[in-house]
């Protein structure tokens, strides 16, 4: 089994996001990066597959220098190979560009499965997985919460989550791109000492070259959510509050 996992660096919303002066992008200086949460799940799922079948996991880190740290963590967790793909800050949320940029390398890698989070918190357009599969001419299925490979490595049986708590079990021909919603277990913990060790000895391949010019989405304006209507607090004791609720229901014709 040969698996590739795509790990994207996205803005960490623990820090306040600041809109840049141009009014249509984030101020890069104020951004702290974090690996897209669902991509962490994709890595965990790949490592679980590796534990069940003999094989290798290639971690592909997209972004700036923070992506290198994410690759070191991936290797500390058990990834076999690390590929760094430098992406300009402005292009990171554009999955049309990312898929066009990655397709050739993924094809050349000969992976049985390419896993990635079903969405990224900064994505502008459709999910990366589907766009990648279209470029590679292979199947895509997303929203997955479990993956099993058959013994011959020709097919995968995947669990797909549907709204309302329904679960679909389906078969997909390999090679395929899989969009992970959640791994079968929460992403594992790796002690800091192991990450540090991996950082010191990390060897990354780098995917160089300019980003392709493809038709995509252009951001025209970025706005912060505005609070409009405020909640009205009902004051008084229980009887007074109950009376006010009854009046509100009557006034608004809710019954």
């Amino acid at each position, binding site marked *: 089994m040969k698996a590739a996992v795509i790990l994207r660096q996205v803005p960490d919303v*623990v*820090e306040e996001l600041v809109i840049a002066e141009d009014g249509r992008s984030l101020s890069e200086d104020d951004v702290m990066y974090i690996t897209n949460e669902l991509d962490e799940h994709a890595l965990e799922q790949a490592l679980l597959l590796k534990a069940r079948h003999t094989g290798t996991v290639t971690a592909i880190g997209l972004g700036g220098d923070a992506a290198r740290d994410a690759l070191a963590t991936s290797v500390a967790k058990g990834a076999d190979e690390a590929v760094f793909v430098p992406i300009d800050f402005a292009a990171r949320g554009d999955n049309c560009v990312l898929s066009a940029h990655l397709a050739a390398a993924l094809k050349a890698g000969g992976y049985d499965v390419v896993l990635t989070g079903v969405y990224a918190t900064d994505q502008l357009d459709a999910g990366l997985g589907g766009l990648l599969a279209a470029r590679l001419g292979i199947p895509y299925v997303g929203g997955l919460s479990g993956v099993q490979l058959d013994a011959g490595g020709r097919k995968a049986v995947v669990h797909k989550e549907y709204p309302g708590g329904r679960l679909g079990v389906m078969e997909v021909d390999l090679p395929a791109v899989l969009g992970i919603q959640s791994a079968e277990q929460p992403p594992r*913990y790796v002690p*800091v*000492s192991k990450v540090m060790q991996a950082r010191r000895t990390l060897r990354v391949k780098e995917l160089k070259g300019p980003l392709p010019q493809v038709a995509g989405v252009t951001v025209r304006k970025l706005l912060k959510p505005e609070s409009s209507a405020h909640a009205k607090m009902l004051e008084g004791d229980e009887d007074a509050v109950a009376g006010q609720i009854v009046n509100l229901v009557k006034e608004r014709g809710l019954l």
Partner: protein
Amino acid sequence: MQAEAKSMGVEGGKGVDATKAFLGRLSLLPDGDRIAACIQCGMCSGSCPVGYAMDINPRMMIAKLRAGRVDDLYRSSSIWLCVACFNCTYRCPSNIPITDRLIASLREELLAGGVGVPPELQAAFEKTARYGNPFGESPKKRDAWTKEAGVEVPVLEPGDSADVLWWVGCFGSYNKRNRKDTIALARLLDVLGVDFGILGTDEWCSGDLRCTSQGEEGLFDALYRHNTAQLSKRKYKEVLVGDPHAFNALSKEYKRLGTPLKVRHYTQFLAERAPELRRLMKQTMQAKVTYHDACCLGRRNNEYEAPRIVLETIPGIRLVDMPRNRENALCCGGGGGANWLDSFIWERTRVPLPVQRVQEAAKTGADILAVSCPLEIPRFDDAIKTSGLEGRLRVREVSEMAAEAMGLSGARVA
């Protein structure tokens, strides 16, 4: 007999090498080799407040290690039940550092061996590694509380100096229920005319992780390196800390790793100024007060009197002790990472320690449960609510009580 011995791992079992390697690592730590002096008396296990819920109690842990069976411990949840109360360490007749070294090293072993860590604690580790605090709060907002302090709280930039460098700590900086106490201490320092400053956003978690036996040594080292680099860029005569766990890390572990610091807990700092505090007191506080000895300040660092001295400066209060006080105090259950293991421990014990402790406090007839460790504010506050003691008993930090009696409470603008 020989075959049986083999199957037990006494001779040549597969755990023997792993056990030897583990004991080798343990012996490199201060007093780590004292484990050899264990007389298997069971004092540790008998005095452990959660020992009854352990499948392998501390005495058995040592017996397992002697039998070459460290791998048995991998399968036990006992290692994660330790709340770092230091009863075992304090009472061990052979002076074995059970909490700080044995339990910590076992946790490290589990982490390094990929056995994993309970999920809540894992999240705290990840957040501390990433943000420098276990809550996952923005590192940039660490000193945001200073805006509400109502007095000037100087942030020392590299090259700056002050007599006292105040180590605010994660709970004191971020936790809503602790911030009022942090502000109270800022106002106390201000009114006492202390030349002080804080590290601001350059302060990260002190990393008591390793020493409160959470076992993430790599994380502790990373925090230690960051913090000592920041400390070395400022000049100060002493470090003042609000959190007993930071007190322990900075005074003992940082020293062990090559950074000796003069560190005092705020109650020690204030107790030294008791006559001055007394002169500044403006209001009487008609209250019966019982003081809870924080494990990390008491049993672990032998400080029982300073908080009581500060409380006694407050006019009107009457101090009463709970039956279990000083070296016999019952733990709040939050040490050693247990603050992030509450549900894990509850599933196995069902009687939370903070609930037991607030009931003890209520039985004294006290109106106020005074504390000197920030973890105890949210822990006891919640326990008071779940025990139905709301309205009868309040948990309050010593600093905040002193500030109130000096007329320093209430909202203020700087």
